[in-house]
């Protein structure tokens, strides 16, 4: 665990996020009160000049900005807010301290690993955009932060952080918080760093495959969809839609399999701060009998598409054929069918 923290701390420092030092020194189970997240936001805003502040803060009701997130590189879908590469080192550190404050330690670790993976992609992508002489398309500088509304411990507001393969939409409303909808992805899905293999979405891949193999033959027949899945069905840009669930229902699983399903969903839900994640996990457990799991593609780790769908959660994991090895390019989506963007706390 200590080794892991040191490794991630080094990654974060490479990303130019000194604030991560403090994060790593803290207890991994430390909870963040809304006021602490607000204080982090105010510290960040205080370091900005007037022009930067006006670029980073949007009206909370700005639905265009709220929906401006994507799996695509920022050269294709321009994000709002401030680009990390355009910030000074203290500003950048404060921006990342805000993201860290709003997420769980493991959630921030995942974010760090995704961003650093994009830096690896940039280095490997020689000669073209993002490479020598080309405009930046990949890499740790190409991530954006924005705030919707005024940071408040009681009123709803929002933090967006994203770029290529990352679209975090954190809505906070008093003691309530959600990251739905959010996109995580990775390419490469595994890379070496200081002698260790980093797999930003490794837990998702491993736990899903473990669940699939834990099903018996009749259960697996229910879970496996008899057709190919090439992409996310409800990925970025598909807000407000709900598809009919398919696969095997939680009620058809045994206790161990249901626990594995909860643990798998926790890879996404656990990105949120601990209190918010706990509430959401309780919701999931309450509706577990009506929560479905489905798989499409070969029964090989990392090569299959899977989906978790229930009254309180919608998750998809889709390996991408683009770029060769499908195990190395992953798109995922996390949604809350009833409460994307935390609408039930503020939209009346």
């Amino acid at each position, binding site marked *: 665990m200590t080794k892991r923290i040191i490794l991630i701390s080094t990654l974060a420092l490479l990303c130019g996020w000194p604030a991560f030092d403090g994060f790593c020194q803290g207890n991994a189970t430390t909870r963040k009160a809304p006021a602490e997240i607000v204080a982090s936001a105010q510290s960040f805003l205080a370091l900005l000049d007037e022009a930067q502040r006006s670029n980073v803060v949007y009206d909370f009701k700005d639905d265009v900005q709220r929906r401006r997130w994507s799996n695509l590189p920022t*050269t294709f*879908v321009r994000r709002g807010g401030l680009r990390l590469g355009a910030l000074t080192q203290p500003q950048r550190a404060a921006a990342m301290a805000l993201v860290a404050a709003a997420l769980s330690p493991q959630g921030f670790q995942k974010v760090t690993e995704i961003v650093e993976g994009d830096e690896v992609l940039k280095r490997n992508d020689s*000669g073209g955009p993002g490479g020598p002489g080309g*405009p930046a*398309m990949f890499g740790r500088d190409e991530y954006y932060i924005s705030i919707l509304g005024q940071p408040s411990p009681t009123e709803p507001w929002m933090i967006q952080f994203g770029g290529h393969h990352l679209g975090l939409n954190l809505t906070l409303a008093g003691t309530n918080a959600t990251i739905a909808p959010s996109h995580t992805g990775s390419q490469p899905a595994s890379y070496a760093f200081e002698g260790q293999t980093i797999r930003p979405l490794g837990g998702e891949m491993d736990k899903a495959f473990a669940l699939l193999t834990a099903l018996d033959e009749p259960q697996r027949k229910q879970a496996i969809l*008899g057709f190919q899945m*090439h992409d996310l*069905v409800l990925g970025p840009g598909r807000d407000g839609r*709900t598809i*009919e669930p398919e696969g095997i229902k939680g009620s058809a699983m045994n206790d161990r399999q249901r626990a594995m399903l909860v643990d798998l969903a926790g890879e996404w839900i656990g990105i949120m701060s601990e209190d918010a994640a706990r509430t959401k996990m309780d919701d999931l457990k309450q509706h577990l009998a009506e929560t479905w799991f489905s798989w499409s593609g070969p029964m090989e780790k990392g090569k299959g598409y899977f989906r978790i769908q229930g009254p309180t959660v919608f998750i998809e994991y889709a390996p991408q054929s683009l770029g060769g090895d499908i195990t190395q390019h992953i798109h995922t989506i996390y949604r809350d069918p009833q409460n994307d963007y935390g609408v039930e706390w503020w939209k009346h």
Partner: protein
Amino acid sequence: MVEALIKRVLVLPIFLAVLACPTGVQAHQLDEYLQATLVAIEPGQIWLDLNLTPGVAMADKVLGQIDRNHDGVISTDEAAAYAAIVQHDLSVRLDGHSMELKLAAVNFPAPAELRTGWGIIQLEFSVRPGQISAGSHHLIFENRYQPVGSVYLFNAAHPASLSVQITGQQRNEIQSTGEITFGFHPPSNPLKRAGVVVLLAAPLVVLLARGRRPRKRLEEPAFPGIV
């Protein structure tokens, strides 16, 4: 009319240098034409929501089919014409009957965005099956548009109406064909229900009225003075 169909045209800023340096794009190159269909069944209407994403290797070919005068702009007429080409290769059958598709909305990205392989063409078609009877129904959708190089997704949307329940979905392996079995159980019409109540209650009212009149008569001598 065609203009009314155009919801909006996305114009996203694409860096010219990105277009001029395709090496980087190749790391994300799409060599497929992704055709995703979402079918939303409502009591009086069925919606087909098609998202078409031509990959970078397919984009010029698709763009050539859309921008017929090669002026670098997708006009409303060109958008409608392309939608008609796609529509020609789509079919919907409901309970064995072929259904007519009507174009409801289109949304084309700018040609520059299409060329990146990330642009999404959105087409929305509606089907009006008329009065659907209560009970089980079977819908078959087939997409035969540009089968070479295409990959398909097919899904039933979770019905917004409580009177529609999806009871099954089937696809062929590549999802170019999808079948949806659904139940339609409309709530009984409150006006009809009121009518039934009135019909049932009417004889009772008559009987009651008749029952009351004799009683009244008993109270009032039919022929006053002869009691």
